[in-house]
């Protein structure tokens, strides 16, 4: 680890101000991704701005037809929230299957979403549940937020403050865990909003993506058989030493179908 200056931001404005005024700053949330990167000397920010002391950034609530998760809420809190379990069980279940207990108690939704790790679960939750990413500057639809491998629509000085998930008619998340890291090799969020359907896939590509063919099929008939034979091309998918792109493609169809099976 290289040396850096540590700041504990008093509020979001303070964090944002430091982000734009300091030399090479970085926000520190749960540190689950950032700290290992620093320890391995893969990054050397001049300043870390810790959001941990900002009370406004913590907690979950149900507001109208949305579940609101504030940025610094750890995954374990989302998983254990009775409100979330009632209003949007698929989200609680997603959060409860992230990594391991230590990671779930430190890692935050803001850090996860800001990072756009191709194998992270929340991106599938955000896109599949038609979420809005709220920052100190604007609101961004999840569909427009995740741009690529570790790439998001966030601009300099922008701090995620909360994520607002639209409560679906029903939804289910299925995940194939990476045997080493626990991240998603394939994670599929399937959600039904009245006559509309969303199918969002994480883990398999460079960043979360939707499967419009499956969505259209489900909008015709929300049944497992509608999508059971929709094959996904392996061409744009990733492969690693554990799982090939071809296998990931196969799993997407199986997991999407099983997600629907779990709902009907």
């Amino acid at each position, binding site marked *: 680890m290289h040396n850096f200056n540590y700041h504990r931001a008093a509020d979001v404005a303070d964090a944002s101000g430091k982000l734009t005024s300091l030399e090479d700053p970085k926000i520190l949330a749960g540190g689950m991704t950032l700290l290992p990167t620093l*320890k391995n000397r893969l990054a050397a920010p001049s300043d870390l701005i810790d959001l941990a002391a900002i009370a406004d950034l913590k907690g979950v609530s149900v507001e109208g037809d949305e579940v609101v998760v504030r940025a610094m809420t750890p995954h374990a809190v989302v998983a254990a929230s009775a409100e979330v379990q009632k209003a949007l069980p698929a989200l609680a279940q997603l959060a409860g299957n992230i990594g391991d207990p230590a990671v779930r108690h430190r890692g935050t939704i803001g850090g996860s979403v800001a990072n756009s790790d191709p194998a992270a679960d929340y991106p599938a939750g955000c896109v599949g549940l038609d979420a809005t990413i709220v920052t100190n500057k604007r609101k961004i639809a999840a569909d427009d937020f995740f741009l690529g491998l570790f790439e998001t629509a966030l601009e300099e000085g922008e701090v995620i403050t909360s994520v607002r998930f639209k409560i679906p008619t029903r939804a289910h998340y299925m995940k194939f865990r990476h045997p*080493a890291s626990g991240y998603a090799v394939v994670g599929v969020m399937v959600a039904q909003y009245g006559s509309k359907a969303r199918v969002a896939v994480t883990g398999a590509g460079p960043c979360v993506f939707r499967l419009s063919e499956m969505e259209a099929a489900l909008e015709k008939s929300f049944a497992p058989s509608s999508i059971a034979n929709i094959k996904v091309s392996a061409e744009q998918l990733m492969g690693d*030493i*554990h799982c090939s792109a071809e296998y990931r493609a196969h799993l997407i169809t199986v997991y999407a179908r099983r997600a629907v099976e779990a709902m009907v």
Partner: protein
Amino acid sequence: MGEFGIGQPVRRKEDVRLLTGGGEFTDDINLEAQVYAAFVRSPHANAKISAIDTLAARSMDGVIAVYTGQDLVDAGVGLLINDANYTNRNGKPMHKPTRQVMPVAQTRFVGEVLAMVVAETPAQARDAAEAVEIDYDVLPAIASTAHALDEGAPLVWPEHGENLVVHWEYGDKDDVEAKLAAAHTRVRVDLVNNRLIVSPMEPRSASAEYDAASGSLTVYTPSQGGRRLQMMLARGLLKMAPEKVRIISRDTGGGFGIRSKMYPETVMVAFAARALGRPVKWRGDRSETFVSDYHGRDQINVAEMGLDASGRASVLKVETLLNVGAYLSENGVRLPMEGGGRIIPCMYDIPDFYFSVKPMFTNTICTDTYRGAGRPEANFIMERLMDAGAKALGMSREDIRRRNFITEAQMPYKTHLGFTLDSGDFDGTMQMALDAADWTGFEARRAESASRGKLRGVGLATFIEGAGSRPVEGMRMRFEENGDVTLFAGTYSHGQGHETVYAQLVNEFLGVDFDKVHLIDGDTATSPETSNGTFGSRSSMVGGMGVKRASEAVIAKGRKIAAHLLQTEAERVVFENGVFRAQSSSVTLAEVATASRDASKMPEGMALGLDESVVFENDVENFPNGAHVCELEIDPETGILEILNYVAVDDCGVILNPFIVHGQVYGGVMQGVGQALTENVVYDASGQLLSASYMDYGMPRAAHMPMMEALFNVVPAKTNELGVKGAGEAGACGAPPAILSAVGDALSHIGVSHIDMPLTPEKVWRAIQEASAVKAA
């Protein structure tokens, strides 16, 4: 005796200390005015070193010294040696390239230490290490066990002309091949025994301190016992008198075989401390342990067995390729011959045997001993063969084993490579496992799984081990003034629980309170002269027998003293429960110990003190064995496999502490589950390690394993008075073949009988896909 004696499930003494952060691991030790080391490691698997420029590094803040291989040559530092001595049948000796602590001219694996920086702080040392500039001429590299012996493969040691270390053979190849050809049924298995990261919890570390006035060097490092390291470091490497080198391991966070070895970093830290006259400290990080700790396993085996119509196997051929890495580590090359060789063909009586071993160099870190050290590999071969034989003959897997087991009537039974099995009830042990797992009720459970679309399988593996290698070890027993007893052992507990078990033994033999017995180990200044350490499941026998011998000597001496105090003859004194008795009068051991310090109370001519120092030596090892049954379910659509039930029945002879032996079984099985399901070292074609972190290397998790049942079939060893057999490595022997057997069973109806480890979901899924495609065609 009582609740703390032999066989009692006594809770481990050391656990409160270890679990509450009271352990003293090498990184916990900080020496006055210490400075810090960081290493420059090779990024290339094979490269000539044309220049090392340390100028920039030397001028950086806080940097005290930078050393390269040339500095070691100039200082006369010795080589890292291997003392194996195998020859080819044509008389040509094995190839033994020299290994410098830091190579000067060429690097041969990624992660190899090429330079060392010493600085005032760890960060300064790291910064400077990054500033050392090395010019490389990168050469083609070879990492693959399957291809290192191919024509035209890049050569690790070009002057040798090939990557083969030696071609070692046992038995008559032509005769065995003729018998295989003539056999009623002939089966063959092609196996990969995957390469593993050993993963002790504590990363490798070292701290060293040199006292110029006395010329003595103290090295703190995790180990499995320091005496051998002391000898190597003193005599071979730093050219010092052994008594001037002291190795201390307070606590060590896991060894598994690889912590018993001498590594370049240890030598360098010691060298720098001596050269600089300041304590030097290095704590490896996890990334460093991935690339520079020795790896485990990495064999390819082709084996054939010939059977008659009744399932009796009479002839066996095993051909093994072994990847030893870029150099010869201390024991890696020995594993098939001296590790697995002790027992192969394992529990089976097979008269004709040809065994060929081809160890090879590759551009990878060395392999060496890892929990089981050659025995898991040997058992894996035999168990896969037995399953193949059962399938070929349409027999049950238990019947074919039963048909071929060495029986108690045949014991003592001499193995092909010259070891003698003294005891074991292989059939009885297997039957216990089958019963506990409800083997005969399996078909109903298979049908239930099938109704849910799942493929269920049950697997059986039996195995034998050779434990207690190099059976000679010292033990000292000291009586303290407050009545406590302190043991000084040459064995070294690095997780095994010796503090507890040795105290149980002292309690059993001498009646001393469990809490009043203390163990001091892991320090060459206090451990017995004869000290080999802890490895190969040896401490129950060599350490346990040491405690027994010392206790016997104490009792013999104590009887004379007691007789003197009680004014009778020693022959009339009996010792029981810590008390010496002669008719109605008695004196306690503690009182005898006190009297032994007072010349006026001692018999004439007897030396003062009750303390004892003994060396236990045995002619032979012992042979733990067992039978494991694993039941699992496969999701054919995804290939995901779930273990549903696991039964382990072990014969580890007399059980000193079932609680601790259960722990050993669980841990060993878990490591076997890891090898079978998730763990795999992957190098790419250029020799880069791809599985270099726990984000990429699949350690098994608790979720991979259901509750398991561990049972014992106690058959006391006949070759040591405690009747103990080793318990540490059994689980790792049993789990891989039991799991493979179960997968073969689950998939047999579609024609899949073997998938190479690790059985990742994708591999299982592909095997199912391919078999289904074949079936459909």
